[in-house]
């Protein structure tokens, strides 16, 4: 059974047509299931855990990056996560803006997402963690003044620019390769001087007293913070045009 988790912002009138069209399409494809609206539940973690216990096979995030991020966090921390990893899948139906996570899984729009759910092509992927937060794509921070502690060395940058800690890239034009199956995070530093730094690691610590770390373009967190990779932690339904092999 599918459980569809709708983000609060979808209540706005401008999304009514998209939601109606989506629900008709899901019914036509035989994919209808239970709908849970985030604004109606107090504890997303226990709501999802409950659905998994009741036998739900697929949890579908309907919304944007923020929706996916909240659901991932709830799923991973749920007591029944072990069950989730073995039996239940994560699906995504992107509606509106800020859907780089869906893009990276080859899910272009809501119509596309329905066909992808039906095809049920599954990939087991890594997840990044930044403190108590999780990310599927990347975490970013301003490079100026940032110190990265990796294994037995540190990396510092005094130039303005951006540091990205990448699990799975969301930009097709990006020349750097990322792999959400390799159990490693890619660290990419691009400064305004146009030089580029690249390396991979399983864990690192980030320090910057002046700037916050931005997780999946959704959450801002203070540093110092430890970032780790959790290998093969999630089974996701993906499209043919995903940005990884």
């Amino acid at each position, binding site marked *: 059974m599918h459980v569809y988790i709708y983000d609060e912002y979808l209540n706005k009138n401008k999304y009514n047509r998209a939601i109606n069209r989506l629900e008709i399409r899901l019914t036509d494809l035989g994919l209808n299931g239970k709908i849970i609206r985030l604004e109606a539940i107090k504890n997303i973690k226990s709501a999802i855990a409950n659905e998994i216990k009741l036998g739900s096979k697929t949890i579908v995030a309907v919304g944007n990056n923020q929706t996916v991020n909240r659901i991932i966090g709830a799923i991973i921390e749920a007591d029944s996560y072990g069950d989730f990893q073995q039996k239940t899948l994560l699906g995504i139906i992107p509606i509106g803006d800020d859907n780089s996570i869906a893009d990276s899984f080859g899910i272009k729009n809501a119509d596309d997402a329905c066909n992808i759910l039906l095809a049920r092509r599954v990939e087991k992927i890594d997840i990044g963690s930044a403190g108590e937060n999780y990310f599927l794509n990347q975490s970013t921070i301003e490079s100026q003044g940032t110190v990265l502690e990796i*294994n*037995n*060395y*540190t*990396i*510092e*940058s*005094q*130039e303005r*620019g951006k540091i990205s800690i990448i699990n799975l890239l969301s930009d097709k034009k990006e020349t750097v390769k990322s792999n959400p199956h390799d159990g490693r995070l890619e660290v990419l*530093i691009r*400064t305004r*001087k146009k*030089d*580029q*730094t*690249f*390396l*991979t690691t399983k864990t690192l610590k980030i320090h910057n007293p002046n700037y916050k770390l931005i997780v999946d373009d959704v959450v801002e967190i203070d540093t110092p913070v430890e970032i780790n990779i959790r290998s093969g932690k999630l089974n996701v339904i993906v499209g043919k045009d995903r940005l990884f092999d």
Partner: protein
Amino acid sequence: MFSKDIKSENFKDAETIIGESIKVKGNFQGQGNIVIEGFLEGSLKTEANLLIGDQAKIVANIEAKDAIVNGEVKGNIKAKSYLAIGKTAKIFGDIQYGEISIERGAIINGQILMISEEHRRGENKRQAEGEEEK
């Protein structure tokens, strides 16, 4: 000028690239090809190949299989297989190499010693055994 087997182009898909504006401090160790264009202090070691760019400044002992040095190094260099020293290189330390080439204009202040064939065979054997165990 350098061996056809090791050129700057070979480092296009290097495992690690340290850009010009970056400072690395500590013991830096890798398995794959490494490119250093910035500043590194501590120690630098890889089982594969190393390219030190012409703007790079390194204060460390270095060990690699093949190495191209075009920047400044204060420390000892050990290239088990092949070492290419470019015309912009400034090296202040001792060098051990399997094979070497030095371009006109390079500055070297230190001893230059070839790693004996016997020693190299021993190292290669140890490395191969290490890979087999993995």
